[in-house]
């Protein structure tokens, strides 16, 4: 396949960015989207065209949450339930023009080209996304039975990879789905119940503090989440939050 790529280039956080156009030829439909960018970069370097395009990636199997590109106006591109690294070129057609941008959200400032700073997510987790237990001195793992249903729902929420697609696709740059995934995981488990109220309050107030917007229930986050995490978890978060506020 031959493709035209319009890619956002920005030298650093403060520089002014703009789109540049490149072409790649003979791309195999079996190659992944990031492999296509590898080929472009090798060409940019070896043919002395430009410095390579920077993008974040690591595991390339859809689990580390490091990759994240805004492709043709959609977080992680046109395929459903996958990260950018799992997107394959067979989802595009020969001759296509593809527009590639970074996540655009105030709390995720651009570092370079397509790379953004997502440490705001770490800050939210640091504010309360854990059960406060130290290493050692804990009961046997089978001491507390947990119903399979609850454990499964907790796992559905815990599947979040922290990529930030929810924020990038939300018009308010809200991190509600990200926060909800963590809160809901714990809300379905007996562990850490004693600190549930503090947890939800602290995480939500940190989310506001680091600049994420409000949730207005548009549902774009769920639609673009590569792990298909349901917005029902946001409902759970809201219930937890109001319960914490009342008493």
């Amino acid at each position, binding site marked *: 396949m031959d493709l035209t790529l319009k890619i956002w280039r920005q030298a650093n956080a403060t520089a002014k960015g703009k789109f540049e156009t490149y072409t790649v030829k003979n791309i195999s439909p079996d190659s992944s989207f990031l492999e296509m960018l590898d080929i472009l970069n090798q060409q940019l370097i070896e043919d002395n065209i430009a410095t390579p395009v920077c993008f974040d990636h690591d*595991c390339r199997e859809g689990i*580390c949450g490091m990759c994240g590109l805004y492709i043709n106006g959609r977080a992680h591109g046109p395929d459903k339930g*996958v990260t950018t690294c799992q997107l394959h070129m067979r989802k595009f057609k020969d001759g296509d023009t593809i527009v590639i941008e970074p996540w655009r959200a105030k709390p995720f400032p651009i570092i370079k080209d397509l790379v953004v700073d997502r440490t705001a997510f770490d800050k939210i987790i*640091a504010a309360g996304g854990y059960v406060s237990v130290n*290493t050692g001195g*804990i009961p046997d793992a*089978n001491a507390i039975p947990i119903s399979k249903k609850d454990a499964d729902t907790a796992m559905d929420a815990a*599947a979040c990879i922290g990529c930030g697609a929810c924020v990038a696709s939300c018009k308010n740059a809200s991190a509600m789905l990200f926060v909800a995934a963590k809160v809901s*995981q714990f809300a379905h488990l007996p562990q850490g119940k004693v600190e549930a109220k503090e947890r939800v309050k602290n995480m939500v107030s940190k989310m506001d503090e680091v600049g994420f917007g409000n949730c207005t229930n548009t549902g774009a986050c769920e639609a673009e989440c590569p792990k298909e995490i349901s917005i029902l978890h946001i409902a759970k978060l809201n219930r937890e939050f109001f319960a914490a506020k009342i008493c």
Partner: protein
Amino acid sequence: MAKLNSKIPEGPLSRKWSNYKAEQRLVNPANKRKIDVIVVGTGLAGASASASLAEMGFNVKTFCYQDSPRRAHSIAAQGGINAAKNYQNDGDSVYRLFYDTIKGGDYRAREANVYRLAEVSGLIIDQCVAQGVPFAREYGGLLDNRSFGGAQVSRTFYARGQTGQQLLLGAYSALMRQVNKGTVKLFSRHEMLNLVVVDGKARGIIARDMVTGKIERHFGHAVVIATGGYGNAFFLSTNAMGSNGSAAWQVYKKGAFFSNPAYVQIHPTCIPVHGDFQSKLTLMSESLRNDGRIWVPKKKEDAEAIRAGKLKPTQIAEEDRDYYLERRYPAFGNLVPRDVASRAAKERCDAGYGVGSGLAVYLDFADAINRLGRKVVEERYGNLFQMYEKIVDDNPYETPMMIYPAIHYTMGGIWVDYELMTTIPGLYAIGEANFSDHGANRLGASALMQGLADGYFVLPYTIQNYLADDILTPRMTTNEKEFVDAEEEVTSRIDRMMQINGKLSVDHFHKKFGLQLWDLVGMARTKESLEKALVSFKEMRKAFWTDIKIPGSKDEFNPELEKAARVADFIEIGELMARDALMREESCGGHFREEHQTEEGEAQRNDEKYMFVSAWEYKGESQEPELHKEELIYENIKVAQRNYKK
């Protein structure tokens, strides 16, 4: 050999660890506050160690190259984590887990370490459950288990196909809790580039801020390396793109011995290579071998027809299929250890029975779907099937998966003693970065166990035995000569690299080198291939330092520069791998020398001459490294030829 003291405690095997803990020195809480510990790496090993040390009161500085500690490659582990809980009442015990691990490692691991690993394995599951890790459960609400290769019991705990993710998120949240308390200072997007040694002791690191390019000096009373394995030397592997061996290599060059570099694990169930643009290989979890059956056609002409696209696997009659693992290893069948399964696949493909491109075998779920129903299979493996379909564009519910072995894990690594300390005092290595516990072959679901054992339950104890002497050592300023010199080494290497200005990209080089490493030091090695490798890698190293081109500058976010530094190290690591493999005139576990096999094609050990851990000492750029040997003594296990047939 006098140099290697493994510090194995006295006493019977089952008392060694408790004796050690009873006698070791501790650091009191007021003194812990005065001590800084550097942890490099935030995988299971690094994150759990950082969190535990900080909870105890030490000041911790934690580094990782990703934008967040949560993205360390431990996240990608799918299948599960072993523990000798015996929840299934199927005869499991600490001893059996210990025994399976030693046997699985082909009798090339240290007894005392492995026993301790089995001993603390149960605590890990307790710890993770307390953190809220959503392990799979049965309808009665208790924890569920599955089986993994090399074991006849079900002792593997799992969280769908995302066990590593859930365990890492547990450790990551414990770490972030400490970050919030100010006891851990986190340096993400920071890459360690050198170790600082003062008066023979590890006292700090040099790191590069990957966003600004700034080179920084960091002091620590002790330094812990938890940077994972070096499997990416092969370019194509199941590791993350950034996984590297550089930190291990830097400390090797500063005097830490490097052990068993030749022991690499080749995982039998990965998606086959499909093109030369490919950047990585994807693992299909070993748990699939619980229900999937591995086969190739019995007749060569069928295999040929399949390769030519004239026949479909579903058209091959039952009696024309060769379930070669079940045929060769009736007792363990599809659940033989990884090294055995990988070699058997290679043997069939080399003999002309491979499918797909010729380098693939089938992993078939038709029987399981008939027996259990599609729904159960979907529940067990749904996400893996989906992943396969996304990559290959084939539906594994309808047609068998194709798999082939790929580089997956490195058993070799930095030599450590019982306390997990390297040959440099104050320098520790944990997780995949060290060599301990797995011998010549790691069993499935044991790396997660080892990483968390090291980080939660071993290092936090043993490091105190060392730091107890350091309570009066004040924090150093980083203006000392040793810090300045270590920084200078880093900057001059970077400058040299940036100035080459050749023609080839780093990836170009890495691919070429990786392919050679696979051909010459891969699944089957010979004296000839290894000698060839030694010559060729030297040339490659030279070519790298003249032909490579790194665009941009060193003072900015520059992934090409990061990659270049790692690849330069990989080429040198490859050389040591070849040297180690050449020295070891036997086959054991993941190390297969074609000259040393039984008539049936099984690995043939030579216990008389090679029952030792190799530990290589760096002797400078122009000299060959020196081999030290740690003899392995088996007091509790009867050493035998591994047998998975009966």
